[in-house]
Each structure stands twice: as C-alpha cells, then as structure tokens.
C-alpha cells in the first residue's frame, strides 16, 4: 500500500519501520532536513524535506494515490489541520493522527464530521495507561494485550524452575488438566513458537496464555505453578516514581479501585498540585534515585512503577527498586533500542507507549477486516481480533479438520456475548469474532488472509 507519513518524529520512525518490514511503500515528509536524512539513511523509505502543503511535495508523494496518511508531527494542532486539509485531496485514504492532549482525545464530539470518519487517533499515552492497569491486575505478567474492552487478555509469564509444566509435552498437560488454559505462544532464546501438541516446555520459557473475562486467574496460576499470594491487589503496595501526567492518571485509576498508592515527585510545586487533585494517595517530594528514600518505602510487597519523563531514570530506579527487594518493577520507556535490554536489566515489565500504536495501525493495513490488532514481544507476535464473514474458509468447519497453518492459533472465540477458548471441536460461525495469534514470520499475513478471504 502507499503510505504517507507526515513527521519524521520518533513516532513516525517506529511506524515506518514496521510498515517497510511488511512491504509497504512509504513516503516520509518533514521540514527538518536532518531528521529526513537520518530516516532515508536507515529505512527503505523515500524521505522528503519540505512542507506537506507544498504542491510540489504533494505531487511527489502522490497524495491522491495514498491508501493511508499518518500525521505524526510533534504538534497536535498541526496533525489535525494536516488531516483536515488533505481530506479534500484524498478522501478515500485512511487517516491516523497522533494526538496527545486529553482535551482532544476524551471529547468524542470533536471527531464526528465526515472528514474524520476514516480517521484513527493514535494515543500512545492512553494506551500505555490502559496497559499499565492491565499489568497491575494480572500480577507477574511481563506483557499484556487486551481486546474487546478487556474481555480478552493475552498475558505473558515466565516459567520458573519447578513449575509443573517444565519438561512436559503440551498434549500431555492438556489431557490431565481439570480446567483448560490455552498456551498460545512461547518465546525461547528470542525465537517465538506457536506450540503444537508435541511442544515441550523448558524453564525460563516465556509463554503467553489467553485469559477470558470471568475465568479465574488463580486456575491459570496453578497451571503454570506461579505463587497464588500475588493475586490479591490489596496485598501490594504501589509505589509510583514520577508524578507527571502518567503518574497522576495511574494514581487516580488506582484510587478508583480503592487503593492508596504512593507517588514520588521531584518538583515540590508539582507534588503540591498532585495533592490537590488526588484524595487517597500519599505524595512524597523526593528523587526516585535516592537510595535512602527508596529503602524507606520498599519492602517485599512493593510494586514499583517508574513513570518519570526520563526513561534512563525510569530504568535505573526500577533496577534499584528490584535490588532493594520490591517484588515487581514496571518501567516506561521511549527508545526502541531499549526494548531488548529491559528483561536483561531485571525489570519485570516495560512499556513503550509509541509501540502500542503500531498494532493499531498495522491492523488497518490488512486486506481483510480486522476489529482490533496488537503487536507483542517487540513485534515478534501478532494478535488480531477478526470478524468472520460467511463463506470464509474458517467458517463452518471443526477446527480440528481445518488444519490451521503452522504458526497461527485461534486464541479466543466470541459469539453473542459468550467467550470461549477454542479447541479441536470448535466450529466458528459467520458473525463470530476470533482472536488469531501468529508469530509474524514469512508469509504469515498471506496465510491468515487465506483463512478469512471470502470468494466473490
């Protein structure tokens, strides 16, 4: 597809990288010629320096042929105006706008006109906040994705030495279990597998299971041999490092759940502001890298969440918190290069807000309908919630006789408000929604399309 990205920002770069990987034709436009030169140097995109409203640039990027236009400059207003202005030129294109200000994103009235019908808002901070809450609700998980407003979660856990799963084949475990837990993917040595019956678990495997609304988390914890005591949120103390926008919003969410988090904020003025707006939380004025302060606050039941604006401080304070005995530390970061090191450094979970938007955008680029899409494991695992249409090969047959392509698994099944875990006997109907998880290798995209394609 032809994609135009306006803004050679870190956001634009993250998106461009994944689009190129999937074989799309990408133009990037920005006024900053250095950023453009950078981009052209290491991505297979055509990067042009100039203003998008310049007629020369518009014809260079062939705006009328664009299938998707992403406005991801540093300024909300700029992104919105760009989308409005380009709408006349290419009314059929899909639009995605990076909008940060909550005033814009929370007010759905603003996004009603025809010019925004095809528009998607990219709100990395809000996605990150939702993810954080999910992560706190699913203890020990290192990564979570949620679908259908939280009705389905995919959650990743690390298998410990001594887990009942270690050394067993997947098919043996399934047969013996009283309740079912569906393992949809396993990461081992940076490689991602969609396990078949013959798959044998090792300790330190990182496995993803699918969790449905209403099912008990404790069953899944038993299945994986994880400590049950972590399950009660009340047993934990929540320590939030950094009282900026994210820190404030998380504290408020936790307050709504009846919890009383502690927030550490470096600026006295901002700390005062937090106290004014929060009710149950404690706000401390201090530095999250101050050893004495952390020592005082952290014990074995502490969950530390690093949300300051400085990602290096986030990482360092998370590692420090872990060293001081916190049972879990979660950090927010912005540099894609850090994605691989978070687990090495001993941080339990790391959230990259911009990365959360990639899945959303990639979902729009599929040639089949997709209701929700997320990328996991730094892009190595693809999860798509797809509506099934009459006539699609996946419809009307027992899953067992279907012969799913290798590397794809049906992780959840949604029909008329009912959620189930698919098994060999499941038959999908038209109108159902299915969560498909795949390991995003080779021609997976084509394989999935062949499952969903409706012949006309």
């Amino acid at each position, binding site marked *: 597809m032809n994609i135009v990205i306006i803004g050679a920002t870190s956001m634009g770069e993250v998106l461009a990288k994944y689009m*190129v990987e999937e074989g799309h*034709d*990408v*133009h990037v436009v920005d006024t900053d010629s250095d950023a453009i030169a950078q981009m052209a140097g290491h991505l*297979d*995109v*055509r990067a042009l320096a100039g203003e998008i409203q310049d007629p020369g640039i518009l*014809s260079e990027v062939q705006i009328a042929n664009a299938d998707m236009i992403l406005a991801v400059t540093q300024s909300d207003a700029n992104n919105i105006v760009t989308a409005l202005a380009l709408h006349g030129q290419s009314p059929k294109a899909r639009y995605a706008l990076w909008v940060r200000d909550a005033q814009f994103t929370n007010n759905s009235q603003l996004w009603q006109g025809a010019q925004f019908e095809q528009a998607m808002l990219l709100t990395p901070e809000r996605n990150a906040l939702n993810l954080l809450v999910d992560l706190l609700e699913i203890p020990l998980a290192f990564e979570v994705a949620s679908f259908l407003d939280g009705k389905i979660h995919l959650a990743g856990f690390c298998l410990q030495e001594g887990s009942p799963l270690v050394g067993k084949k997947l098919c043996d475990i399934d047969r013996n279990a009283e309740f079912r837990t569906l393992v949809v993917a396993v990461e081992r040595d940076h490689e991602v597998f969609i396990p078949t019956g013959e798959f044998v678990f090792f300790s330190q495997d990182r496995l993803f299971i699918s969790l449905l609304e209403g099912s008990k988390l404790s069953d899944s914890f038993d299945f994986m041999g994880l400590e049950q005591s972590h399950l009660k949120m009340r047993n934990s103390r929540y320590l939030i490092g950094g009282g900026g926008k994210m820190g404030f919003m998380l504290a408020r969410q936790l307050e709504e759940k009846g919890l009383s988090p502690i927030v550490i904020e470096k600026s006295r003025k901002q700390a005062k502001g937090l106290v004014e707006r929060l009710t149950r939380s404690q706000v401390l004025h201090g530095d999250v890298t101050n050893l004495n302060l952390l020592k005082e606050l952290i014990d074995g039941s502490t969950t530390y969440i690093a949300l300051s604006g400085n990602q290096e401080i986030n990482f360092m304070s998370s590692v420090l918190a872990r060293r001081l005995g916190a049972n879990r530390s979660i950090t927010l970061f912005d540099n894609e290069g850090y994605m691989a090191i978070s687990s090495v450094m001993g941080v339990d979970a790391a959230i990259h807000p911009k990365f959360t938007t990639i899945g959303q955008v990639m979902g729009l680029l599929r040639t089949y309908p997709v209701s929700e899409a997320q990328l996991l494991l730094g892009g190595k695992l693809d999860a798509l919630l797809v509506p099934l249409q009459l006539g699609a090969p996946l419809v009307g047959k027992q899953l067992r006789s279907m012969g799913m392509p290798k590397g794809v698994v049906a992780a959840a099944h949604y029909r008329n408000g009912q959620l189930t875990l698919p098994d060999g006997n499941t038959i999908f109907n038209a109108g159902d929604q299915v969560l498909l998880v795949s390991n995003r290798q080779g021609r997976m995209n084509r394989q999935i399309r062949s499952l969903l394609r409706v012949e006309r």
Partner: protein
Amino acid sequence: MNLLMNLRVLSLLAILLTFCQIAALAVALIVGEDPMPFIRSMAVGGAVSLLYFVTRSARPELRARDGILIVGLGWIMATVLAGLPFVFGGWMGWIDSWFETASGFTTTGASILTDVEILPKSQLFWRSEIQWLGGMGILLLAIAILPFLGVGGMEILKAEVPGPTKDRLVPRVASTARILWVLYFAITVANIVAFMGSGMDFLEATDHAFATMATGGFSTRNASLAAFSPSAQWWCTLFMFLAGINFLLHYRLIYRGDTAVFRDTELRAYSGIVVVASLICGITLMVMQDKDLELAMRQAFFNVVSIITTTGFANDDFAKWPLFLQVILLNLMVVGGMAGSTAGGIKVVRLVMVWELFLAILDRLIQPRRITLPKYAGSVIPPEVMEGSLIMVVVFLFVMLLSVIVLTAVGLDFTTAFSASLACIANVGPGIAKVGPVENYAFIHDVGKLLLTITMIAGRLELFTILILFFPRFWKQS
C-alpha cells in the same frame, strides 16, 4: 564491516554475470560459433557463485562502508570475470582482456583491438552486452531483481549511481532500481527497432543499441558508425542524447506525464551546450572543409553528442578536424552528461553548481556586505553537496594529471597521454593523436593499460568509491 554479507552480495553478482552470459552463448550456438569460451567462463563464474552457499549465515545489514566495498570490489570482480570469454577464446591476453572488459563495463569504449571485425559475432555481442550491463549498473540490476537487500540496497545505490544527490523515484530502493532498468530496457528496444529500420541486421542493431544506450561506444565495425547509413547515424545521435539525460526525468515524463521536466535546469544546460558546440563545429566544417549542410551537421551533432555523453562512437575521424574543434571536444569530455544518466564525466549539474558558486563569489567581491548563497533550481545548494561537487572537479583533474605522468613515463607523447587519460577517466574512449577515433589503445605498455583500467573504473564510480579503497582509514575498524 560485514564481510560475510559483502561476500554474499559479490557471489550473487557472480551468479548474475554467469546468467548474463547465456545470451552470448545462445548467439554462439545460433550463429554456429565455438561456444566453449562461454561455457568455460560460465563454469568459472559458477565456481565463484558457490560462495553464496558458504555465506548463508551472513547478517543482512549493510552500512555505508559495506556499500562502498561491495561496489568497488564488485566492479573489479565483474570486469575480471566478464573478460574470461575473451581470454578463453584466445582473442586477448589477461591484461588486454581486463582493459577491454573494464572499458566495456565502465562504458568507456576504448579498445585494444586493432581489428574488431575478425572477432566472432558471439564475442562481439558479449562485448556490447557488457557495456549495456555496466551502463545502468550491474549492482543496480542485482538490487532490481534480487530485492532482499532492503536498506543495504540504498548504500549500494549511493555508491554506484552517478550524481551529487541521490533521490529514489519511489519509496523502495528495489522498486526504484526496477523502474530504472525497465525504462532502460524499453528505450534500448526502441533503439534496436530504430537501427533495424535504418538498415542494420538484428544482431548489429542490438550490439549498437547496447553500446548507444550505455553511452559505451563499442562498435562491431572498424569504421564505427561511419559503416552505416546516415539515418542510422541520426538515430544514434538521438539515442545517445537520451541516454545522457537523467533517467529520473525520463521516468517523470513517461510514467507521470510531468512536462515540467523540460524546464529542468540541468537538462537546459546540457541541451544548450550540445546545440552551441554542434553549431560551432558544423559551421566550421562547412566553411573550412567544404562539407555540405547535412554532412557537416550530421558529423558535428554526432561527434559532439558522442563525446559529451562519453559514448565515443565516431562517424568521422575528428582528428582531421581543425585543432580548435578537437580542443572543444576535449573540453566536452570533462563536462560529461547529466547526473543519473549512463554517461560519465564530471556531470553538467556539478559544473552548473560550481558556476553558481563562482557567480556568488563575484557578487560578494562587488558588494562585500551582500549575503550570497549559491542556488540551484531555485533552492540553496546544501553546503555538503557544494563541497562534493567542488572536490569532484578537483579530484577528477588531479587523478587525470597523475595518470598523464605515468603514461608519459611509459613512453607516450604529451597529447596522447593527456587525451588518453581524459578519455578514460571520463569514460569516453577515443581521445586525440595516437588514441584518436580511428586508433586504439593496443600499443600502450602494460603498466599504462593497468593504470588506465583502474582509472576507467574509478571514473565510472565517480572516483571516491575506488580511491577510498587505497586509503588505510577505510580499512581500519572504527
């Protein structure tokens, strides 16, 4: 430096070259000539290709340094491998074949053959095909049909495609390369048809179209284009002129119907130089040598276009022209065609930029408080592009003079040494005096031939890609 991946790309290049010889082999079989030189050469190419299987574990990332190394070594390897049929056929020695093949790939067109017509048709076909492959760039072809290089492809493209700034026509490097080759192929087919329409047989039309579109200049006749009809010569002039134009402009005009290309600054400068120089030559030939209008203009336009696009075809021995016309032609060699074309030389755009800088400095001398920035086509020339253009001019002259010193040391007279050096570094082919349009390079000492071979390759890759290989800092791990 990712040496394993570099080797892998080189082995792919060997595979590609081996496949390209199938066409020449087919010609040999159809015409009924000895196919063995090609079969043996393909066997050697096949052996080198085996490297591909050894380097399977290579990481695909390529950086700027890798791009330079691949293109530099790739061209040296290609010129050696593609010369094997000449050696195995017994027509040339090793040094001569390297010179001849390099002259082909770099689209120079300088030959060490005193009599081309004794060569079998298949050998002549291969000699022309080499030019055609080198014209648009053999590595660009690899990028076009083996689209696995991704961003690494950009590094290769930067090192192989001539011009001060590199833009892709379309987002992906592989698609850009494919479009360029498709265009090149299509215009070549048109050229073949035009030549056949003016009386050449299919094989000769193809041979000459290959050499024309590549701005190469190898002919299958000793008399070059003078052996063919005036209409063939006019067609040849037109297609050489087209080949000297930036293919980006061809793309815009043909694919997008963008007529703004006719207002392109470089195109106007290029056409202007061609028309003015041709008229001077034509009128002089009419006045001083009593040629009639059509003949004078045909010879003038043909030779001017042939020289400025660095093709090197001849339809008249311009060594017999008045000396000042010969000097004009020598100057045109320095100019070369447009950036992004198949022509060699310094390129019109660089000279336009240097001229703009000159004017800016003049303005500053007249009014010291005036802020002057050299502009090209309405926008300020970025300092690094300006620098690049200036240094290219300087290094071009420097390398040429160095080559003159060596050639005079091995016994050439000054005029011959000077024009041979210029004709090789600018990828033209014929010079004046003993290397004039009806002469050849056979008599030059082997040392001189080796030097000129390196000079030709350096000239085709715009000097830096080859020169950098001689500097230790390139090889140091940083």
